[in-house]
């Protein structure tokens, strides 16, 4: 069985579509330069700085979406979430599903000019197995062998359905064997990869410059000489600096400003559905939220339709299940969510250890105006059932440090898949022993863990669908986190910036990007 990567999710294809809205009035210059122009530096505004480039130990978007410009996996996914060949031109799988063979693309070089070989792949994947990290290689790998210069063979101890999807995650990117002869520490300060860019100047508390990889395997790309990731404090400033012409593109746009920005002829807004889920996370180590009745009461008290309407301005879809409809086996239409019902919420709270209510602090990152509004809705909704909410909003770096340490009562945050298979998301959010400790809620349910493991070995089909339905139903009823809505990826650029590709995980590809020259 030899086939080019398949597994284009039917559902994904139906739901995902990159919508380009914005200036319909093209500037005269745009008409003349329909073909890409090489050169130039693109400035990209983001709200968080890059602190580490170790692909195996990092997860948050500030680091991940720099890492994926430097290192590339054997397979990747496109803007619609379909798996596509990347450093591997093709792969074969044995009929028993235990043996995968990857044929590397010819002529791929690292940014220092050395050739990519099968040994680099073996080294990279082995290091990932060793480090484990936040987006682990959970496949039951027995052996990774370089059968020749450009072929890698991976043997599994048992079949593993999400294997191909897992290989497309950025954490399975390829680095040179033995870190190119340097120490680990040295390597990740100035890494070498096969990606379209390499690291230029880098201030871990500020801006970062990506410079063009002259040896990039995609002919003639990237067009840009460099991309500067500029640290900007909040989303209001992001839009203002785009409008005032200080940056070419921005990583996020408050949905409240989408219509406004679209009306601006000098701005292009990119809205596409993605793999993210906005959620309210309840720390199950907290004395109040450890009580399942309290958590269910919170879920019942929330008007998710209202929250979505008031804070997303038609750019998001109300969430009824953990897995978004852009990923396979979403139970969004299965009617499993606890409905908005204040009376039922009060009854549920009456059954808990805190029938008269209590006080709790809702933690969120500052600099995100949309979340600040969500927090006020949650506060008002919970006041209805006797829970007094104090809102604490802190700098995003501090916010991450706090929830990583499980130092919070409950928080608003976003869950995100890094691959089109549901296993990644479920592992991240429901495995209490993994890096993310059930997305830092410490939610522990042996039944879910058992189902999660079955989901990995059950072949695609109805049986697997049932497993994920069961998992999502349990999670909806236990409510360690309450999915609120599925946000779109919303990016914006100046109308003279072209070719930005937004992936469903929210990362932006720059190899096709170009800027109209000033003349």
């Amino acid at each position, binding site marked *: 069985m030899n086939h080019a990567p398949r597994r284009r999710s039917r559902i994904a294809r139906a739901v995902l579509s990159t919508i380009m809205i914005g200036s319909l009035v093209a500037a005269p210059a745009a008409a003349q330069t329909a073909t890409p122009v090489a050169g130039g530096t693109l400035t990209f505004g983001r709200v968080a700085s890059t602190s580490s480039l170790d692909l195996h130990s990092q997860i948050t978007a500030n680091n991940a979406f720099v890492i994926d410009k430097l290192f590339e996996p054997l397979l990747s996914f496109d803007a619609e979430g379909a798996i596509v060949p990347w450093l591997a031109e093709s792969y074969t799988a044995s009929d028993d599903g235990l043996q995968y063979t990857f044929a590397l693309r010819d002529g791929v070089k690292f940014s220092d000019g050395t050739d990519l070989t099968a040994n680099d792949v073996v080294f990279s994947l082995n290091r990932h197995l060793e480090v484990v990290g936040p987006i682990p290689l959970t496949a039951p790998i027995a052996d990774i062998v370089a059968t020749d210069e450009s072929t890698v063979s991976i043997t599994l101890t048992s079949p593993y359905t999400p294997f191909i999807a897992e290989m497309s995650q950025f954490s399975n990117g390829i680095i040179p064997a033995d870190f190119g002869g340097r120490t680990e520490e040295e390597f990740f300060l100035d890494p070498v990869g096969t990606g379209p860019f390499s690291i230029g100047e880098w201030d871990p508390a500020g801006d970062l410059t990506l410079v063009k990889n002259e040896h990039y395997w995609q002919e003639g790309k990237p067009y840009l000489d460099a991309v500067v990731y500029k640290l900007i404090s909040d*989303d*209001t400033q992001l839009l203002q600096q785009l409008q005032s012409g200080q940056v070419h593109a921005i990583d996020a746009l*408050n949905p*409240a*400003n989408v219509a*406004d920005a679209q009306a601006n002829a000098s701005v292009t807004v990119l809205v596409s559905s993605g793999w993210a889920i906005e959620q309210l996370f309840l720390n199950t180590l907290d004395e109040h939220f450890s009580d399942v009745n309290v958590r269910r009461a919170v879920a019942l008290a929330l*008007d998710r339709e*209202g*929250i979505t*309407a*008031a*804070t997303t301005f038609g750019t998001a879809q109300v969430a009824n299940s953990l897995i978004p409809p852009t990923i396979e086996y979403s139970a969004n239409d299965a009617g499993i969510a606890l409905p908005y019902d204040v009376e039922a919420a009060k009854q549920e709270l009456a059954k808990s250890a805190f029938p008269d209510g209590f006080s709790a602090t809702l933690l969120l990152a*500052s600099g995100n*105006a949309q979340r*600040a*509004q969500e*927090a*006020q*809705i949650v*506060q*008002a909704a919970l*006041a209805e059932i006797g829970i007094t909410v*104090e*809102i604490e*909003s802190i700098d995003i770096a501090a916010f991450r440090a706090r929830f990583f340490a499980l130092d919070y009562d409950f928080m608003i945050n976003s869950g995100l898949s890094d691959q089109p298979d549901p296993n990644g998301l479920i592992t991240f959010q429901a495995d209490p022993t993994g890096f993310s400790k059930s997305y830092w809620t410490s939610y522990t349910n042996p039944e879910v863990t058992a189902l999660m493991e079955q989901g990995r070995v059950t072949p695609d089909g109805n049986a697997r669908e049932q497993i994920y339905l069961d998992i999502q139903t349990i999670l909806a009823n236990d409510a360690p986190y309450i999915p609120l809505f599925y946000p779109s990826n919303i990016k914006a650029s100046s109308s003279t910036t072209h070719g930005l590709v937004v992936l469903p995980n929210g990362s932006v590809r720059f190899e096709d990007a170009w800027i109209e020259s000033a003349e």
Partner: protein
Amino acid sequence: MSEFAAVRPAPAAAAQGFLGRARRSPALIAGVVLMTLLVLVAVLAPWLATHDPNAQNLTAGLLAPSPEHLFGTDQLGRDIFSRVLHAASTDLRIAVLAAILPFLTGVLLGLVSGYFGGRLDYVIGRIVDTIIAFPFYVIVISIVFAVGAGEGGIYAAFAIVGWVGYARVVRATTASMRASGWVIAARGGGLSDRRVILRHILPNALPQAVVLLMTEIVLIMVAIVTLGYLGLGVQPPTPDWGTMIADGQPFVTTKWWISALPGFAVIYTGIALSLLGDGLADAWRVK
């Protein structure tokens, strides 16, 4: 006000002079009118408001001003007019309460420092210098950080830093009066220090302190709003002009009234209090 005047050395003449000058001071009249209006609005907010200031209507957000919602609605569908009114009572109440304690301590320390002089005066003077050296917002934000965001933090911060202005002004007047003939005479005549301070010095030092109080309330009001904007002041859902401005920030270019109207309310308050302060200064002939 006439009570202060009545105990001055030449009570009748001073009172007449004060009232006479007060009537002729356009600043004072305007200040009193604007301030009375503001206080009325703040006190009557629950009755004047057309809606519950915290009632959300998630599907009726960002409405433009209309007869139903005089100032429109915010992102969560809350009535901005009602919130601006309620915020007036919140912010004014906190500003006035936060101003009282430092006013009393400042006047007291200024009197004591100026009257007795010596080592006590030196120590108080150095404490004043120290507090003044810290940029106002740096020290206020640090104290709010230590004590905790919200109303409590605001009171604590101003109790610690707010008294220095009064202490300076009152000390200067007191020290200059101590050397004057009639105070020396009064002390020689066997009047106790307390009596001299309370009956003779305080009435003369007070007008300046009261004029300063007006400026200080403006300063505190602006600080409360600034802290609210930074998320360190009045906490949601309690309406406050600062948090309202912050909530409206994404809409400054499209729905300007959301941030602008609470901003105008702050400016109105500032003008009213400044006029009142200037007017009182004119009437009392305080420089």
